[in-house]
């Protein structure tokens, strides 16, 4: 729910700054590590936009899979092996390359 509030806050600011009359659709990139359940987020969004320029907008969620890489051996892996321990060399110098995204990708807006 608070992720939805953060999204709405960003949207409202953009609508204000650009003088759009309404937002028709919102495409969001959400990392799988964000623990977001798309249906729950869509429901929270639909409920929260009532009475705002986003009312009735369609929310599309692009799920970004989790990816790790090891600085030690250069290996890459995904969610089948979750975590900061390299399943190939056992090293701990590991980066999460993607999976924490929460980004507005694009919007369809109605101009005045």
């Amino acid at each position, binding site marked *: 729910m608070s992720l939805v509030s953060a999204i709405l806050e960003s949207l409202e600011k953009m609508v204000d700054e650009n003088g759009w009359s309404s937002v028709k659709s919102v495409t969001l990139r959400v990392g799988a590590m964000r623990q977001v359940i798309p249906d729950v987020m869509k429901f929270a969004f639909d409920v929260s936009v009532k009475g705002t320029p986003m009312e009735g907008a369609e929310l599309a969620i692009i799920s970004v899979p989790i990816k790790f890489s090891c600085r030690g051996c250069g290996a890459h892996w995904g969610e089948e092996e979750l975590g900061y321990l390299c399943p190939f060399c056992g090293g701990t110098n590991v980066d999460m390359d993607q999976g924490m995204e929460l980004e507005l990708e694009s919007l369809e807006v*109605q101009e*005045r």
Partner: protein
Amino acid sequence: MTTKKVEVQQAVMAADLSYAQKIKDRLREKGILMVNLIGSPGSGKTTLLEKTLGKDGLRAAVIEGDVATDRDAKRIEATGVPSIQINTDGGCHLEANWVDSTIDKLPLDELDIIFVENVGNLVCPAEFDIGEDHKVAISSVPEGPDKPLKYPLLFTEASAVVLTKTDLLPYVPFDLDLYWGDVGKLNPKAKRLDMSCVKGEGLEEWSRILRGWLEEKRNG
């Protein structure tokens, strides 16, 4: 009236992060460590604080996050350390802007460490940077050993993982090897701690960890 598509490519949490940075700057200037305690309702966060506060020579304060009621805050008040309660009115976690507006009400010149007891929840508090130096994941024996894999974000973000209520191990089926094995895979760098506040197990080690973090912060 025309409809057009707009490419945005913008991270959503920017506002939150700017508050978190403000808190970090403020606490660095004052040399104060901030530790964010995250765990389920009933995992033992408040009890751990009761066993910590005033007993290890660190000058502490507590920010209590709760959905409703001031019960935990009352328990903390009884220890005599300064505490401030943030009621989230149903919100499932604390956010940096609330912590920011709270922090200057604490006697910052007299503190070594601020503990934040986050709202009891394994999901949302892990998402939000509130300007802390360290997140601590707290989970208890009766909750079962599957929590790390079910709530991986918290366990990967935590600098330390505390398993509480280990005095219940003889009575509750709990696979310690499975639990710590999963924690080790998710986050091999996290400090790992078995703890029983009833028996006093793990409290000295906890104190050492806190002192180590404080030293790191003041020297770093």
